[in-house]
């Protein structure tokens, strides 16, 4: 008889810090201590607080352990599971900012307190590889309700009334998209789930697929019924092996139970679903390129119209929805449009999942109601920048988005506000930058990404972004001119107006937004030949302050190229700037702060 559940996070983040070994060790030591009949160990999805992973949760005690190592497992088994003593040194806790008290209740910890989990509701709660656990959480009830008591049009009306908008970035109303496809003539129609998450630093969709794959399977079946499709594809990148593995398990389990296949719930509705693997090209997140890739062609976009709703995969009407959008669908059907539309802002309903990364204390996955401010996300949930560094900007929307600064921190997050502020919602990557990040370098990074990922079909994107990258690289080397800034701006606007697909049209955004918010940094690179953040290597020189140098020789021993000379205990050390490769090793090695970077 099972009295305790041990939930080990098996998301990608925790897996890479050895949560697989933790899972095996639990099973091993439970057996050794004779508890394997009483305690069940379960692999589950992302708990969200990836920074502190691997995370292990113990129920019904509701104790969360963080930074767990495989070596800790025996101790947890012997103490907590055998003797009932919580291992306090591993317990996830937070200090109350005002009283200094230790908070242990997971629901009261700041990181979770402001969150509202709808798309992530089962992540970290159920075993994603066991359909019965999903069913226990009311899974597939929405599909049952739709097939046995609703007309397709009623389903679309509910989704329309809920105000759900596409979570892939652009925010097109989901119900309207479905209506377009439903209104198309013909019987052969398709539905696609876009799981080609490609923004650097974004891992929302991956975590949903890994933690709650059945929610996507159910969402797709509901969408297919609403639009009149009988075949669905989940387009997922091969770089997400855990997600692909669990999706395939989920599809097979659903097929075995008859929740996918012929005559589902005896309603006469047939639906089949398969996973199609992509090779990880960023452009394949663009829907027409994605369709080409599913058809086995080279992943390149085609002009719109015709829109996929009219002519999509195999030339037939197709609806494409993002993972997170689909994860909301079953909940909306069960709880109603009014429930969903009561959450969020006037034009953006519901919640949004963000992947918090970069210079932030609590790296991880958060789901917040629309209308939460950036300040709440970054400071209250995220805990602010580590090491007391000053916040500089937050990059949202990936390579298609832009940077938002201190001034925009109190903007309530929704689709329209973010666009008005010069960025975009994007799929939900949120990268926090602090005073040590150079904004020119950030713009250069995204442009380099784009030139790699541009499919090359249209010249504005293929050639234009390459020219932008060249100019940005020159500026980071101190070879830029002030005229370049105007040229870049002009080129950016031309690319925006003339590129074929969304990738090219939005590619200049990181450049434009850093130019408008951080023009002074560009000017410092060009006029003063300095990188204020100390990032652009070509503009830096390292030197040793002879007054602070204690002649200890640590720096010269750390230098990988032998550029530092001196006599231990006698003569201060000197860096030969000709030989110096600006790696910063000496600066890290010096304990007296004598190495100066300018």
């Amino acid at each position, binding site marked *: 008889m099972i009295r*305790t559940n041990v939930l080990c996070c098996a998301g990608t983040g925790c897996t890479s810090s050895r949560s697989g070994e933790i899972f095996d060790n639990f099973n091993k030591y439970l057996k050794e201590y004779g508890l394997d009949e009483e305690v069940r160990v379960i692999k589950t999805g992302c708990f969200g607080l990836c920074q502190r992973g691997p995370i292990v949760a113990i129920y*019904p005690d509701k104790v969360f352990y963080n930074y767990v190592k495989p070596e800790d497992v025996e101790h947890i088994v012997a103490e907590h599971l055998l*003797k*009932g003593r919580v291992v306090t040194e591993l317990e996830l806790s937070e200090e109350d900012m005002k009283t200094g008290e230790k908070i242990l209740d997971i629901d009261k910890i700041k990181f979770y307190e402001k969150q509202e989990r709808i798309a992530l509701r089962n992540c970290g709660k159920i075993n994603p590889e066991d359909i019965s656990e999903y*069913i*226990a959480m009311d899974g597939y009830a929405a599909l*049952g309700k739709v097939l*046995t008591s609703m007309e397709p049009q009623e389903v679309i009306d509910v989704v329309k009334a809920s105000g759900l908008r596409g979570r892939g970035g652009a925010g097109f109303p989901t119900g309207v998209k479905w209506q377009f496809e439903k209104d198309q003539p013909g019987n052969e129609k398709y539905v696609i789930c876009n799981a080609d998450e490609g923004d650097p630093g974004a891992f929302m969709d991956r975590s949903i697929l890994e933690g709650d794959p059945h929610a996507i399977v159910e969402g797709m079946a509901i969408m297919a019924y609403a639009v009149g499709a009988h075949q669905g594809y989940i387009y997922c990148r091969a770089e997400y092996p855990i997600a692909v593995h669990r999706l395939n398990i989920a599809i097979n389990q659903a097929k075995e139970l008859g929740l996918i296949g012929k005559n589902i*719930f*005896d309603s006469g509705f047939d639906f089949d679903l398969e996973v199609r693997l992509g090779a990880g090209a960023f452009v394949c997140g663009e829907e027409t390129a994605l369709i080409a890739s599913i058809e086995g062609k080279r992943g390149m976009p085609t002009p719109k119209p015709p829109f996929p709703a009219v002519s999509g995969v195999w030339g037939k009407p197709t609806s494409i929805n993002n993972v997170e959008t689909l994860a909301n669908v079953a909940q909306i059907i069960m709880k109603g449009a009014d429930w969903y539309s009561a959450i969020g802002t006037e034009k953006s309903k519901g919640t949004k999942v963000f992947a918090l990364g970069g210079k932030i204390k609590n790296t991880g996955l958060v789901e917040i109601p629309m209308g939460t401010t950036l300040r709440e996300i970054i400071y209250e949930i995220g805990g602010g920048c580590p090491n007391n560094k000053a916040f500089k900007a937050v990059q949202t929307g990936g390579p298609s988005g832009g940077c938002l600064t201190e001034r925009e921190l109190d903007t309530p997050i929704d689709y329209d506000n973010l666009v008005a502020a010069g960025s975009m919602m994007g799929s939900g990557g949120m990268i926090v930058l602090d005073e040590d990040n150079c904004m020119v370098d950030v713009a250069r990074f995204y442009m380099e990404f784009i030139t790699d990922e541009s499919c090359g079909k249209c010249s504005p994107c293929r050639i234009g972004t390459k020219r932008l990258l060249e100019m940005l690289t020159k500026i980071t080397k101190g070879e830029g001119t002030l005229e370049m800034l105007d040229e870049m701006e002009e080129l950016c606007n031309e690319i925006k107006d003339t590129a074929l697909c969304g990738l090219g049209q939005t590619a200049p955004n990181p450049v434009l937004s850093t130019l408008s918010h951080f023009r002074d940094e560009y000017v410092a690179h060009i006029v003063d030949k300095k990188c204020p953040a100390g990032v652009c290597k070509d503009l830096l020189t390292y030197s040793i302050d002879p007054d602070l140098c204690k002649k200890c020789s640590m720096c010269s021993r750390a230098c990988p190229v032998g550029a530092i000379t001196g006599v231990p205990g006698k003569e201060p050390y000197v860096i030969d700037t000709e030989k110096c490769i600006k790696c910063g090793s000496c600066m890290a090695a010096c304990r007296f702060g004598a190495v100066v970077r300018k």
Partner: protein
Amino acid sequence: MKSLEDLKKMREAALKKVEMREGGKDYRVVVGMATCGIAAGARPVLNKLVEETAEKDYNCVVTQTGCIGMCVYEPIVEVYGKDGSHTTYVHVDADKATKILEEHIGKGHIVEEYTVDAVKALEG
């Protein structure tokens, strides 16, 4: 699976697997499982409590704790109510455990004779 009824049945069967993660039960039954408790026979008590709770669907979760500090009275079982009530049962064995579940969790009546106060009074 062909009907909502089938789905409902499957859901009810599966609920047992996950319900302990949900919380929301009226009582928390805690067994002292430190060395003193185990030596005095807390393990069969814990097993009985878990089995009976699962079988008869009592409105409680069963968990364990360390040494409560009254080793002489082990095995000790504490019952915490949602309303903040707290009862300590001492010298519990498997049969007494069954009765505590039946009376206290099932009907809301404290089994006075097993409580620490009653046992202490009896022993003088």
